[in-house]
């Protein structure tokens, strides 16, 4: 298979597994980051701020 010898299927399957697993990890990190940023923005829109943020803004 593709000049990979008689065991080409095993080689292709190994690299496909690597692509799937690494791709899944990257996708998970990106989607999780987006979800947390959205949730944080939604809470801040509702007026929830951390004490340090309120102190920085000069609000009680």
């Amino acid at each position, binding site marked *: 298979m593709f000049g990979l010898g008689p065991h080409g299927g*095993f*080689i292709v399957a190994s690299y496909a597994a*690597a692509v799937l697993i690494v791709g899944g990890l990257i996708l998970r990190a990106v989607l999780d*980051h987006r979800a947390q940023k959205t949730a944080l923005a939604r*809470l801040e829109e509702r007026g929830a701020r*951390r*004490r340090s943020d*309120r102190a920085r803004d000069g609000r009680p």
Partner: protein
Amino acid sequence: MWRYANPTVFLGIAARLIPILSVLAAGLAVVGLWIVFFVAPADYQQGQTVKIMYIHVPAAWLAMGCYSVMALSAIGTLVWRHPLADVSNKAAAPLGAAFTALCLLTGSLWGKPMWGTWWVWDARLTSVLVLFLMYCGVIALWNAIEDPTRAGRSVAILTLVGFVNIPIVKFSVDWWNTLHQPARVIRLDGPTIDPSMLWPLLIMAAAATLLFVALHLAGMRNEILRRRVRTLGLLAASQDEAPGLAVAEGTR
């Protein structure tokens, strides 16, 4: 170390490092794969099947390396109570599980054509399976306890208990007779693998390591944000009940 204990400082550093590490990892992976498929020779015994080594071995190194990072994080949680130590542990566990799964999967795909079997219960393969189960246990424990501080301490103890398996994985091929070949790269007397295969292996390992560091930083960043969401959610709920309450800044 304590300078970086502030989650806000850490988030700034992570935001700068993640893109740089990702680009470096991708660049090294492209170079490594090009050498693997167009330059590196076939093995005199295994033929082209040796190409599986270039992902199997880095995955195996990262499987052990990631658990070592988690063990250091566990010490940071229990001894120094570093605020980012349990964040590091939680972010590393799924990465370690994924790289261990990749190691087991590619090892099986390598074993079938070379050994004639997908799996044997020998010391190396079994200890790596135990490592994978340890990762699953750590992830399960993180999800079982809602309070991150309590979960962090319990997970830290479990992580340190499980660390005893790491030297067993590493030295299993020396201590017992196994079907798995002995170490060829990380040896006291130096690598015994031919340089034409060693270099692409080291390049692929460097790419995988940089990818791991980038994903670990990204995971830590996400966990810090998750804890802020949790804190602000609690604050919003408490303000609904008693206006004026505030929650101190922190990772939790």
